[in-house]
């Protein structure tokens, strides 16, 4: 079969007028304008534009605190079919800045739906745009890398394009940004909600075995639910909590959560804490940003990825068992494999690009994964990691 490259993108035509009926526009930092119809709240917002290839779970994605500072382009054209409900959320306040979709949001149809997605977006102040060729945008992000831009929703159809262009240019980008401080909890709290099941919804923890302190850099609730369902008594603490304060809570294990932004930036204050905890021999488990910062704490480096991993179909190989798990992913930074010190052993690798997806510390009870074993949204293949953490605490106890 003859192989051929993609056709040239033709998104750079100079223009500055809204087409008839356009109520929203995306303006990229390079000046590209993409016109569509507004949805959700009116106004404009800047951020890093990224794409997510999940077909289901838009509500979970929009409420995942790791999306702070980002505008999400959904590759699946129909978003909003099942409406919004009070259960499928990962935080109460969405962290994502906006969303980009191909199709207008439809009336919801699902037995659990309680609200039209558009209404839900409005009630959370989220700005969105529909009618965009999200595939074309995705190809652009894939080829040219993550882009900064502004989404503006103006119901009356009047846009100050010059202003939007300068906003887009002015947005600094995620590198060097400590966004965890914006999405972490303000104070310590206990968590006892367990996982969702069909017919029962969420449960409440009855008994617990181990005390886990979860450091919240922007934790998804489902991680806390996974811990609770695995018999952990969970205490959630703010991102800036010191190692001493954590140790004073006498945890059996410490969990380092996911979160937004640049691990190096947040690491400025989190890394010393993590280092201290690991050195104290407390079983530690990190996910996503937690994984990256644990790597930093142990001497590795992280870097910004070209366009990141965001979707629910990412294959990860467990190098120990040889098994492949289909994982949910959302990260724009990655641990640099070549920078790993000898004390770390890579345990999981991405089968898409070979990047580091998990490691363990050789002589210490600590491990971390880049992807999201708590799923929500996405496959639940990797829930065994929570059991592994519990086992580690049991062995250490």
């Amino acid at each position, binding site marked *: 079969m003859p192989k051929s490259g993609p*056709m040239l993108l033709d998104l750079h035509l100079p223009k500055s007028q809204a087409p008839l009926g356009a109520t929203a526009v995306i303006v990229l930092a390079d000046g590209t304008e993409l016109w569509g119809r507004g949805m959700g709240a009116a106004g404009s917002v800047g951020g890093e534009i990224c794409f997510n290839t999940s077909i289901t779970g838009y509500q979970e994605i929009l409420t995942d605190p790791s999306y702070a500072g980002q505008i999400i382009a959904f590759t699946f054209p129909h978003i909003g079919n099942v409406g919004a409900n009070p259960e*499928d959320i990962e935080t109460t306040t969405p962290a994502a800045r906006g969303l980009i979709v191909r199709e207008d949001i439809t009336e919801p149809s699902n037995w659990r739906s309680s609200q039209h997605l558009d209404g839900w977006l409005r009630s959370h102040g989220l700005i969105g745009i529909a009618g965009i060729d999200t595939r074309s945008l995705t190809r652009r992000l894939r080829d040219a890398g993550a882009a900064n831009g502004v989404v503006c929703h103006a119901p009356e159809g009047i846009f100050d394009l010059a202003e939007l262009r300068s906003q887009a240019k002015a947005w600094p980008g995620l590198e060097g940004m400590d966004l965890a401080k914006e999405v972490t909890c303000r104070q310590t709290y206990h968590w006892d909600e367990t996982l969702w099941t069909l017919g029962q919804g969420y449960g409440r923890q009855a008994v617990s075995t181990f005390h886990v302190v979860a450091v919240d850099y922007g934790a998804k609730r489902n991680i806390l639910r996974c811990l609770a369902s695995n018999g952990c008594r969970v205490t959630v603490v703010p991102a800036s909590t010191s190692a001493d304060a954590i140790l004073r809570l006498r945890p059996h294990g410490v969990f380092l959560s996911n979160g937004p932004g640049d691990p190096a930036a947040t690491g400025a204050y989190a890394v010393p804490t993590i280092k201290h905890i690991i050195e104290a021999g407390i079983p530690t488990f990190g996910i996503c940003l937690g994984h990256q910062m644990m790597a930093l704490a142990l001497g590795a480096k992280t870097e910004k990825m070209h366009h990141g991993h965001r979707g629910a179909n990412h294959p990860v190989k467990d190098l120990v068992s040889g098994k492949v798990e289909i994982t949910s992913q959302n990260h724009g930074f990655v641990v640099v494999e070549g920078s790993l010190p000898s004390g770390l052993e890579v345990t999981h690798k991405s089968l898409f690009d070979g990047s580091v997806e998990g490691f363990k510390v050789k002589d210490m009870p600590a491990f971390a994964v880049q992807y999201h074993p708590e799923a929500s949204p996405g496959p639940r293949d990797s829930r065994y990691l929570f059991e592994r953490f519990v086992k580690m605490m049991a062995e250490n106890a």
Partner: protein
Amino acid sequence: MPKRRDIESILIIGAGPIIIGQACEFDYSGTQACKALKEEGYRVILVNSNPATIMTDPGLADATYIEPITPEILARIIEKERPDALLPTMGGQTALNTAMELAKRGILREYEVEMIGANAEVIEKAEDRLLFREAMTRIGLESPRSAIAHSMEEAKAALLEIGLPSVIRPSFTLAGTGGGIAYNQDEFEQIVTAGLKASPVCEVLVEESVLGWKEFEMEVVRDRADNCIIVCSIENVDPMGIHTGDSITVAPALTLTDKEYQTMRDASIACLREIGVDTGGSNVQFAVNPDTGRLIVIEMNPRVSRSSALASKATGFPIAKIAAKLAVGYTLDELQNDITEVTPASFEPTIDYVVTKMPRFTFEKFPGAEKTLTTSMKSVGEAMAIGRNFAESLQKALRSMETGLTGLNEVDIPGAASGENSDIARAALAVPTPDRLLVIAQAFRLGLSVADVQRACRYDAWFLRQIEGIVAAETKVHERGLPNDRAGLLHLKRLGFSDARLAELTGVAEAAVAARRNELDVHPVYKRIDTCAAEFASSTPYMYSTYEGDGLAPAECEADPSEANKVIILGGGPNRIGQGIEFDYCCVHAVYALDEAGYETIMVNCNPETVSTDYDTSDRLYFEPLTSEDVIELVRVEQKRGALKGVIVQFGGQTPLKLAAALEDAKIPILGTPPDAIDLAEDRERFQKLLARLGLRQPNNGTANSLAEAERIAESIGYPVVIRPSYVLGGRAMEIVHDRSVLTRYMTEAVKVSGKDPVLIDSYLQDAIEVDVDAISDGRDVHVAGIMEHIEEAGIHSGDSACSLPPYTLSPAVIEDIRAQTKKLGLALGVIGLMNVQYAVKGNDVYILEVNPRASRTVPFVAKATGVAIAKLAARLMAGEPLTNFRLDGAKGSHVAVKEAVFPFARFPNVDTLLGPEMKSTGEVMGLDSDFGRAFAKSQLGSGVELPLEGAVFVSVRDRDKPGMIAVGKKLVELGFSLIATHGTAAALRAHGIKVDDVKKVMEGRPHIVDTMKNGGVHLVFNTTDGAQAIADSFSIRRTALMNKIPYYTTVAGARAAVAAIGALKSGKLEVTPLQSYLEGSF
């Protein structure tokens, strides 16, 4: 884990003839499996009785047995080939059941053949309803309340627990044969009786009805390291209660939250693990209560299926190919994703478009059949369409059906025209009919609300609102006319409206809409199916059209046409009776041949079951509806770069042929025989003049535009006459008319069928032998590739008739005459490529019935029987090569090939099985052996007819057949059969000294012949009839024979052939020989 080295040879069982429930999808899967395993260096042994498949091309397997798929024949093949392994999961239910039987009979153990993919225990657990239910309970999954019954008593006891309505499912049957939903006691008993009979183990499941629930399917693949992936989720738009094969379905599922989807995903994987499918693809079906989300497992298929073919085409993930590789030990992470070439197969495809599959029905072929959809599948084919939203994909699917729809066309709901009485519309919506989608749209036009419609039809409101949205857009267009602005027109095109539909709505010509579109520069762009929603670059040009853009900037098109010399091949669209897999075979061969000749090949088709729509069959694939608008748009894109040599329209049956005029008008080059030659062959008057000039003969005939004219012509020709509308395929509405009253009735109906087109009347050559000829020509020379003598006499549609290659009764002189006439015709018509001629031979006179200068249904049969790949050659000739460039000497042996048709009558209760000029068969088998008797015996066995070797034969024939039956009767007695006959036939036989018992006709009082048949007193039926009354009288005989699996023949020639076959069978066991040895040296 690397591939296994402890096995060297693998036996693959195909699915046999195309039947309802098993169509081309198993050619697609089998072909992929053969290729995948050969690629790995295994010796592949293939068994399939269906010659019209690509998988049975001699190059695809090391030993190809075109033999009946029965346990006995398989045992002979295993004995001969001694395969190390058997892969039973590629050939549908046929292969699975046959493999199970081989296991049960100990044949696999005896010859140490290991079942790979799924073993006997797994198949048993998945297929046996009770075991399956128990397994699901063990892993905490709910099943509908149910009970197994082996008798009516047990069934009635079960009903007390379960209540009505209840679903009855016979065990081990294909596509729900014999099952159904019972709403009352009467229906319950009726369906249970039929179900017990249909089940080979006399077992039915009586089940709680989940009628109206939402239905979902998950396509799961597992490897031997226990890696599991979901390739695709499928949501049925039609709710539970309608067989998934008859349902409109979409991929991916659109109305589940992630939590519900993941619950279903986990359940599907748990199901595979519990059932024990170690490697390969499976399909798990679920029902979801729309109000509570309660999830119930319905069934699982531990094999590739129609749905997995759909999932493969919908995502670009080749399930059958991967499943074959997993079966020999690979794990998913060791296999590559062919589409991206940079990622492994161990991932879950994600898509950025919506796929709609729509079933194609052929109820019009079976007068008397009830047009209601149930859990027993009735559709004969399907189309798939891809769009960037549901509305677009739905509307593309509607026009892909090729039933004359241009979109959600208006239908009449009798009595509901005004919309004042919505009860009538609601009642219509409540009945699951093949056109319910159109009824729904009509109900919206009548002002019904989504809630009203939903209550009546139980479609999910999401889909209904989409349909309502399309109808609302239609209303606006209808009121305001075609938009004058780019954005307005683009908006409509994004909703999937075809130019043709917009033309209807605005009352202008389609050309005017196309002109407006060109003027406003509104054209589709092409996006790629890449398994990953553009996350990775795709090197595979597998494409669909859509409309993108904001109306300002040009939309992004990923077609990226090449600089090559290219040929576009138009496929055949959805399978239907009269146009099936044979045409896909021809298209695929055209692709292969032109690829060999150095062209870039571009395939266009919308049938997800086929080999032609596999992304690695052609260089480039457009998954598009076969309408002039859709085809011309993509041709324009391909013409932007490189050189388009031309388009092939003659290989995909009537579908692409119908586009020839539009393509010519658009100045698009058409390869091979010019469309005018096709018109010359189809236009009665032009053709008559041509024959007169050539000095060739055709039956007396005439063309009538009115009843009076028809009567006059019929009188002058003399009854009986064959009458049919012009321009039809598959003998649609063709009839043999014996008298004036029938003619009158026909003319009132036929004029409705054919609209303005005239009606053709031919003299019916009674008792003539029909002959089919396939030939190829380059315009200078004609090569007669195959001459087939029909077993049934002229008047039975050629697609329904069994035939023999070479002819088995024709004299050498007649054969020579036919050869000469074919050559004359080919040259006179200017055929470049394939041509099919049908002749009737009466005595030594040869009459031309019809000429079709295009690929015919018999092309693959001829190719397999003679070893000359005529479709490939034809494609090369069409591209300009001379016939003299090719070796045309095929197989030298003296083997005989018999083609037999396979019918779907068992699925249509109360439909007569009598054959006539209207085609009714869904598929065919080939019997290949050293003499006619054996070849015919194999053809019967292959089509599911088991000829008796002893017992009683019932004979009842019309007067003019009585002389012919004497020899047959004598031979039967010689072979040790006893004869039973009705009065007249008995007397005729006795007059020739043949011992025969009398039996009463049905109308003569009881006990009559049907009683005897039902009591097991008849093992073979020879019954010929004439005239409406006799046909009606003998209806119950044919139906009883069908339902009791008693072989029956309705022509003297058929009876003769059957007796020859029985003689051959009694003279020794059937031997098996691979196609490659018959064709030694011919490839």
